[in-house]
């Protein structure tokens, strides 16, 4: 499909109006968020035949809002918006998001959006991995109203999100986390304007003594159809104080859940090796944000 066949460029002024357009056009329309991946998809022949683009810029979704400790990220908030938002700046809790949005070059940071990066549904993007590590939930609006979908269940297949045809991703909600929570994100890339060869988002919550109450380890980039939760790592961490030994065990365990793929950019074995390294490094970074050192 070539984009030149698109006949209409629609600019709804509310998310409700956007949903109505989705209902009207069915799968003959796609949502235009930041637009940073659309041309790449089109040139690779991955775009379906379309009559219309629905540009969300005027739908009032470019917000970052604190809601009682939780954080609501509007679908059209850009990476730059997240980078500059006071609610995120310098926080250890949302460190993974701040890390992730800084990887791409400025032009992408200025255009790429929360909604676009999540709803495209690919494991190659960075922000979804960071949001998954923070237990993010998608808020979708459909004809029947709002519904919440956990990011863990959101990525069904390559470019197939768990959204109905007429549903719109309007927000990603990051729930309130207990105190002493920190997160971090790491990406393996060949140059500074790359899709991840491998990326990883972690979050850890500890008690006063530094014992891990809860952890999330999420791996993306060349690991199949969606980012993967490494629950084996998470269960190793839970209830323990992080030591080098625990981290090493945890790094080893990542491959129980994550099964990297081979492609022309890297082999599965290499991605697996880096996944192990990155688990440790990302956890160290998150722990560092809590002022914890590991020995």
């Amino acid at each position, binding site marked *: 499909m070539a984009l030149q066949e698109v006949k209409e460029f629609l600019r709804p002024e509310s998310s409700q109006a956007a949903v109505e357009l989705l209902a009207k056009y069915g799968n003959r329309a796609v949502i235009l968020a930041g637009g940073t991946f659309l041309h790449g998809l089109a040139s690779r022949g991955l775009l379906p035949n379309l009559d219309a683009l629905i540009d969300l810029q005027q739908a009032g979704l470019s917000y970052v809002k604190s809601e009682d400790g939780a954080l609501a990220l509007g679908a059209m908030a850009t990476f730059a918006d997240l980078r500059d938002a006071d609610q995120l700046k310098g926080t250890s809790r949302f460190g993974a998001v701040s890390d992730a949005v800084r990887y791409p070059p400025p032009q992408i940071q200025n255009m790429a959006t929360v909604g676009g990066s999540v709803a495209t549904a690919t494991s190659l993007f960075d922000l979804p991995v960071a949001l998954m590590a923070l237990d993010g939930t998608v808020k979708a609006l459909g004809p029947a109203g709002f519904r919440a979908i956990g990011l863990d269940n959101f990525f069904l297949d390559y470019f197939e999100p768990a959204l109905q045809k007429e549903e719109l991703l309007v927000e990603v909600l990051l729930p309130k986390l207990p105190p002493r929570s920190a997160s971090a994100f790491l990406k393996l890339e060949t140059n500074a304007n790359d899709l991840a060869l491998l990326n990883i988002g972690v979050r850890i919550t500890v008690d006063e003594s530094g014992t891990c109450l809860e952890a999330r380890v999420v791996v993306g980039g060349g690991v199949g159809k969606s980012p993967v939760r490494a629950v084996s790592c998470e269960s190793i961490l839970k209830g323990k104080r992080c030591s080098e030994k625990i981290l090493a065990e945890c790094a080893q365990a990542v491959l129980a859940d994550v099964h990297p793929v081979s492609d022309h950019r890297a082999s599965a074995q*290499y991605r697996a090796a880096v996944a192990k390294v990155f688990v440790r490094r990302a956890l160290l970074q998150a722990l560092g944000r809590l002022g914890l050192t590991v020995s």
Partner: protein
Amino acid sequence: MSEMKIVGKRVLRSDAYDKVTGGRGYPVNVRLPGMLHAKLLRSPYPHARVLHIDTSKAEKLAGVKAVLTPAEVPQIKFHPVFFSPSLAASMIRDMLILSDTVRFAGQPVAAVAAVQPEAAEEALKLIHVEYERLPAVFDPDQAVQSGAPRIHEHAESNVAMHPSFSFGDLERGFEEADYVFENTYQTQRVHTCYLEPRVCVVESDSQGNLTVWSSTQHIFGLREKLAFALGLPISTVKVVKPPYIGGGFGGKLDMGYIEPICALLSRKTGRPVRIEQTRYEDFITTARNPIKIHLKTGVKKDGTFTARYAKSILDTGAHATHGAVVLMVHGFYGFLLRYRCPNQKWEGYTVYTNNMIGGGFRGYGAPQAAFAVESQIDEICEELELDPIELRLKNAHSEGQPHPFDPSFNLSTYRFEECLKKGAEAIGWADRPSANSMGGTRKRGIGLACQPLWVSGCIGFPDIYEHSGAIIKLNVDGTADLSVATVDMGCGQNTVLAQIAAEELGVPLEAVRITYADTETVPFDAPSHASRVTYSAGLAVQAAAGAAKKRVFDIAGRLLNTSVEKLEITNGRVHIEGSAEKGVSLGDVVKQAESPYVVMVPDGTQRTRLSEKGTIMGMASLAPTSNPSPATAEFVEVEVDTETGEVKVLRVVFAHDIGRVINPPGAEGQVEGGTQQGVGYALMENLVFDQTSGACLTGDFLDYKIPTALEMPPEIKCIFIESNEPTGPFGAKSLAEPCLIVPAPAIANAVYNAVGVRVRDLPITPEKILAGLGKL
């Protein structure tokens, strides 16, 4: 030589102001009234016969003006390479503009011209092509086996060319060796990544004469190739010199499919026709040939080379194009001439495959060889516990010797030793740790590689053009218009040539302006390639300026009542040597020549001199008298992450024996830019193709990675070792290509020094390093 006023000074580029405000002079900006836009239909198959093409639907589409198929195209076999004549015996003519045999995925099989590019694109989908698919082969080792698919009738075993050269007694040389080292090295296919796409506009007039605007490195080459492939007299083709092109690096050193196709579509429609390639099309248009090198070196205990045997297998893809010459440069400047070694044999194979065609790329066969030889030298030194600098010096050529390629020339200025010594000092070679001796997970290492011998153009090379021309015309305001065919592809040729003209004429740099040129108005010049422009075109410009100056002196001598031998020009004033205050402005001298014979003055009429009438011009068209060799040594420091295998280049010191530097910032820019291309070649760049369909998997910058500012070393130090090359303009010889020849082996050697891992196939990916560390 008196002190120079412009040559050697840090001057600002004459085109910089225009380029920072928009830069209009690129061929991509050419638009003509009534112009059509064309697109190429490209084969999805790597090897196939075209049985039938049905264009009827496409022709009916609104906006479509013409469709072109192989049946309407002259079936004249040509080679596309600009620097050699079409009929040169050493070149292989195996291409057609449109053929009914497809030999690589993406080869054009038809074309459409339409009022809008979108309509042309749409029409491509309406062309029905019936193909008979043929078995394809992508690996040159397999291509030469019996039973492999035959790609060209004329090439048995798919070998396009198999040169072999030897001297001395190889067998005895290996017998005399204390040690013999034998390794195989493999380099990959990479793209020049010029940022302006290949683009052209061709206009055909009512008599069928063609005018061509193209993003090209050589206007005369394009004229000759186009005329040959179309079967036209050369005088019917005019190529306009682009004021700028958006990079070339050798990637625009041959005629593409687009120029002859636009020409034919323009003749068919009577309207100008434009094609602009997409980035995907550019990625499958030109590339550095991958070469597999088997290298065997015999060496004495003290590091003296006794024998060298090398065999190179070059994957030339579907057509020979540059593959014939790349291989020869690779053999001679890569192995046979590189260092002194009395017993040598080199043989090469240019092998056809169903891969994309190759092209020129800065260094032209030498980077592949340098990677092999300079890596192996490091391996020898490691094994024999010799210092890599000492070993190289022990086997180096020296100043004053006859040139090893053509003994009728002389290594009159040759400062290789100084390159090594000054570079070593700057990088801190003396404190270099032994291999893999650092603790921690991030380890640093220092490496070195050299290109001890290189060219300043192509004098002496069979079948390759090497002469230049220039016309200088003086204006009554004391300025000069300089016309040359040389295309400035970004390296600053325009500035350097203007400096040379200004220095010779004795005028300020701003007084020299590079003007319009096309193939009808200026003398021939060989292409902008082979590190040749400053040296070769510079000589022609200097000679043209000298000729103009001679006429200036003839007139000024009379005006100042002195003999011409005593005259000189300083800052635009012609004066007697040593008394700059007395004299006459250059503009006033030109006015004598340009004024009416009889002029009106307040007192009446006055006659000027008939013998002095006529525009003051200088012209030259000449070949240089030598091919002086520059020499280079590059030192790099890297840091290797031993957990992920990632390599960061921290520091580069590049020492270059260059003759006289004409414009220092321009020369530094060559080194710095070469470093970017070299870091990419060493660490990440790789054109990858699906091994079944032949489709390019790295057809945009999302997949084909080159270094951004963040992957580049923060420190690049240039050391220019200057001398006064007697055959060069103001003592200059060459720069440019060595800046990309040496980085890959220097980085490979630094990686070894850091972590003890020897990678013999490019690129040195993090994955290969981890494998070398036993972690995969």
